[in-house]
């Protein structure tokens, strides 16, 4: 059945209103408007899609899956529903199923940068880094300034750590207001150990979206990393296990050497200090995390 969403003014008006509410993150209201529209146009795919999307945006994945599968049963070619279903598979960690959907969509729409970006993001989440890079590159070939492809490509560059910031620079230049740009910059600053700068940026993001649990966790973690009491633990923060190992080896070797040169009382003090430092490095971050 051909149910073009702009057949009648009333339908078009309802669809427009629902979309406007979605854009303004008024998901509950968008569902109400869509439900009102569906009373008169029960088979309208666009309204059903809006309902499913609003459920997904409200983190009610089960309701969203039910809604989107009803829609796909009627209209299996609906682009929005198929992409949403793929995202829902990922949300449920059904990564193989999500991948199948993205592949099918890309076979139909081989120039769709949104799909390349989403597939690349899925590959990043499943540790297929090289494929993520290739997909992002392919997406950028079709749409050179696509923000999501640039975002994935920026993360790939950071992961490789080769110092190539070209994608991040392009992302910041072309989409400075986009949340993805700020998040990528936070990741870059954190990676370079610039925790204060990353914290300021993350706080700005949180001021814009204070109901985001992800951003709250990010800010809390950065507050922890940039806390003054974490300064003694800088080698572990900055270089991870390498820093921890180097400090451990330096401590052990240092104490051994000191044992042969310094008075026993001093060596004992140094040993206790070393022990306290080790205990501090193990326990303080967890304690601070609870205090922040």
């Amino acid at each position, binding site marked *: 059945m051909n149910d073009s969403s702009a057949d009648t003014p009333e339908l078009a008006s309802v669809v427009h209103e629902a979309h406007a509410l979605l854009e303004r993150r008024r998901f509950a209201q968008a569902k109400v408007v869509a439900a009102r529209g569906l009373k008169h146009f029960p088979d309208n795919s666009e309204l059903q899609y809006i309902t499913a999307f609003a459920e997904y945006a409200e983190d009610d994945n089960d309701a969203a899956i039910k809604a989107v599968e009803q829609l796909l049963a009627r209209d299996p070619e609906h682009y929005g529903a198929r992409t949403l279903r793929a995202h829902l598979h990922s949300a449920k960690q059904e990564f*193989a199923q999500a991948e199948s959907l993205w592949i099918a969509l890309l076979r139909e729409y081989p120039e769709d940068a949104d799909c390349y970006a989403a597939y690349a993001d899925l590959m*990043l989440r499943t*540790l297929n*880094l090289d494929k993520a890079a290739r997909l992002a590159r*392919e997406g950028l070939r079709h749409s050179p300034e696509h923000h999501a492809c640039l975002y994935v490509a920026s993360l790939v560059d950071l*992961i490789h750590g080769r110092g190539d910031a070209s994608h991040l620079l392009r992302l910041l230049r072309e989409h400075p207001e986009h949340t993805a740009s700020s998040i990528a910059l936070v990741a870059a600053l954190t*990676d370079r150990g610039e925790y204060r700068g990353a914290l300021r940026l993350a706080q700005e993001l949180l001021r814009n979206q204070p109901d985001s649990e992800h951003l709250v966790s990010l800010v809390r973690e950065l507050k922890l990393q940039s806390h003054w009491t974490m300064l003694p633990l800088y080698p572990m923060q900055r270089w991870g*296990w390498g820093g921890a190992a180097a400090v451990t080896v330096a401590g*052990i070797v240092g104490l051994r050497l000191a044992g042969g040169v310094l008075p026993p009382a001093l060596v004992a003090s140094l040993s206790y200090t070393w022990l306290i430092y080790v205990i501090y490095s193990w326990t303080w971050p967890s304690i601070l995390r609870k205090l922040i």
Partner: protein
Amino acid sequence: MNDNIDDLLQPSLGSEAGRETSIYSTTTGYMSAFFGGPLATAGIALMNSYRLKRLGTDWPLGLAALALTLGILWWEVRGGGQEWLIAHLGRKGPSLVTSFAGLATFGVIYAVHRKYYRNMELIGLKAPSGWLPGIAAIVLGAAAWAALAKVLAP
């Protein structure tokens, strides 16, 4: 659709629904290395390789860890290494060498698996709990070390 894209659009993930792809953390790796030696950390590494479906590529890491272990033990047990270590580093000398060798082995493993560790860190993927495999690796690694030392003893 050209061959390049066709190759890109082949499934990379298995057909198993709900399988999460992540590996044991660097903490699990280097703690196993420090307390269990090269064999312990190699055990964790190979478990990660299995999760990443690259056991076929990474098995030489296990072999290298074994070779390092045998080399150190040969020197300690047959080459007078043990006495030398005790004389220069004290009673704990041999166990320190085990730890340092373990850390060095983990260094090599990290270099091989670096992009996966970095991927997990930057995307914020949660590593599976490393307690049980870590403890098992440490116990088995230490036991293997002791057993090999006994085997190599004159």
